[in-house]
């Protein structure tokens, strides 16, 4: 392993590049590239990378960035791209298309606030806007988790039991532009970890199929059911991918959901991305004082790990969900998932906290206040707007 001080963006660029390289003895790799703050360094890195068998195509929009990935993937290559905020919004049509075509394209989302008004700081409303696409979604809590998860995303998305695109999200600036020490996986190990990308329905002269033409309602329903079944196979495929990761690289990335100290906890807090790390410090400090408190790193949003969540909170009385996103007219998007999952547990208070929107700094003090509010509750209420200092 090469240990290096890297920004999140360069670490992500490196992971994409070595994953692309690992397909050089098969049909190669391709990327459609278009810049946006805070993602730009990723595509700059990729444009500068010397691929053995790969192309990074500079396009005129995110819509075309994903379209290039679709074309490359339909031609059998490993394909990837990256974007943020309005770039992801602009890409939406083709992200849905990629899922419907069953193409395992990896999409990096450097989370940023949607605008206008323009705000470049972190907010997960951009990637969560994609919740209804046929798209796996992972949220990385650190630079290391990011690199590892990107490799895992290729392996799971390309698995023949899944064949779906996968999004890996990191926090804009907090992760993308800060440096941390990372183990950058060596190419030989990545070659070992990632099998050649196989798109069984790729365009072939000898098998003239039409991909993406017209369908009637019945075929459409079958198509959607197949996508749902593929999603349901993800937990098993992910477990195998993590085992293999540990075997090849000697460390194990987080799974879909990691529960910390939840066995004896009355109060459980849930978050993702870098908020997890602040939350961990707060929870540790409170446990040191004897509180029965635990936490959940909800790393995977799609498929949503309902069973793992139910198991993790089997002893909980209260759950507080930290949502760095907002669905107008409803509330936090993670909270909606948690509340739906916990319908079978009416005894549990599930409270939503909208926090750190538009990049507000979610400090330990803010999280302490949230925990105090949660602990004082007799029942759940409407989502709480938890303002933070600018």
């Amino acid at each position, binding site marked *: 392993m090469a240990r290096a001080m890297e920004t999140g963006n360069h670490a992500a660029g490196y992971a994409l590049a070595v994953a692309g390289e690992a397909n050089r003895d098969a049909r190669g790799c391709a990327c459609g590239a278009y810049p946006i703050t805070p993602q730009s360094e990723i595509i700059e890195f990729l444009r500068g990378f010397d691929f053995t068998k790969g192309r990074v195509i500079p396009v005129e929009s995110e819509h075309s960035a994903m379209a290039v990935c679709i074309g490359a993937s339909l031609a059998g290559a490993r394909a990837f791209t990256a974007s943020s905020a309005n770039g992801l919004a602009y890409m939406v049509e083709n992200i849905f*298309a990629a899922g419907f075509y069953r193409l395992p394209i990896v999409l990096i989302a450097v989370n940023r606030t949607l605008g206008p008004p323009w705000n470049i700081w972190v907010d997960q409303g951009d990637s969560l806007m994609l919740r209804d696409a046929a798209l796996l979604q992972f949220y990385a809590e650190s630079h290391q988790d990011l690199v590892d998860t990107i490799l895992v995303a290729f392996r799971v998305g390309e698995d023949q039991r899944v064949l779906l695109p996968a999004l890996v999200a990191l926090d804009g600036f907090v992760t993308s532009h800060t440096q941390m020490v990372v183990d950058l996986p060596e190419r030989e190990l990545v070659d070992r970890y990632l099998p050649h990308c196989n798109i069984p329905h790729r365009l072939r*002269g000898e098998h003239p199929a039409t991909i993406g033409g017209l369908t*009637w309602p019945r075929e459409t329903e079958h198509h959607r059911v197949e996508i749902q079944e593929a999603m349901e196979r993800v937990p098993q495929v992910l477990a195998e991918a993590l085992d293999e990761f540990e075997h090849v690289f000697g460390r194990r990335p987080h799974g879909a959901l990691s529960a910390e100290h939840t066995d004896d906890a009355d109060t459980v807090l849930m978050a993702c991305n870098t908020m997890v790390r602040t939350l961990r410090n707060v929870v540790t400090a409170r446990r040191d004082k004897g509180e029965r408190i635990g936490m959940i790193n909800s790393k995977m949003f799609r498929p949503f790990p309902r069973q793992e969540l139910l198991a993790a909170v089997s002893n909980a009385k209260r759950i507080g969900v930290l949502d760095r996103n907002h669905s107008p007219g409803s509330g936090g998007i993670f909270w909606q998932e948690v509340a739906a999952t916990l319908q079978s547990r009416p005894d549990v208070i599930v409270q939503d906290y909208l926090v750190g929107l538009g990049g507000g700094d979610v400090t330990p003090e803010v999280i302490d206040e949230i925990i105090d509010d949660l602990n004082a509750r007799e029942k759940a209420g409407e989502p709480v707007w938890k303002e933070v200092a600018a």
Partner: protein
Amino acid sequence: MSTVASPEELYCHNVLRPGNTNCAGCGMSIGLRWLDEALDGEKPTMVIPACCGIVTAGAFPTTAYGVPTAASTFASAAAVASGVSAVYALNGEPDVVVCWTGDGGTYDIGVATLSAAAERNDDILYICYDNEIYGNTGGQRSSATPELAVTSTTTKGKSERKKDMMAIMAGHRIPYAATLSVAHREDFLRKIRTARKTSGFRFLLTLSPCPTGWKSDPEESVDLIRHAVRSGLFPLYEIFDGIRYRLNERPDGTPVEEYVTRQRRYTKVPTDAAPLKSYIEDQWRYLDAMAKAFPMEGA
């Protein structure tokens, strides 16, 4: 030598096969067949955005396309083709990648994507079958709709002139651009072959008769295009490297009224067809000036 081929031999690997849903008299039926013929047995990979060109394939699991075909989102044909073409090149595969798109996917929603692929000079053979409307969605205007034509969204006749897509493509300095007529078979085949032999981005534009949208008699489709060419309304020409012009056929005095009066979309055109005549005049002044200033050697 046996001369009778089975339907399978005849059609199974054609670009467009029998059973497609093109309306009678649709220009695509001729265009796709001639594309096939000009490729001399080579099987293209097709990228087709939302338009009549993909509807004609029919519904899954059947398809009227006998070659590998990707149905892209409406605005994405050129970018999807760029991805396919790049990967074919990485793998040393010689297959030609053909975009087959309507005017909506070319002049309007797809124009940015098309422009970008052309600017990169990606190895794509891009063909626009221009029926001058959104046929698939019921015949609304596009920026390719000619002045005064009635569509479902220009019920009083369109007030703007048709966009000059060839000039826009020439501005990209692509190696080859040409206009093709389904009434001029040899010229059509020759241009496809020239485009096939050229590498980089190639843009072909064919005026595609659409009896459904033009409110014309299906059996007159080919005649209509012949009149469009002879009257000077649809000039046949080629542009090399975006700058050197070759004009293939001059107007022969055929009155544009011959074209206009046989389509009920032109009911708002005055009987003397003056606006169309001045359009033709301007267009030829421009083309003649370009061909004089920048002639293609050997023209």
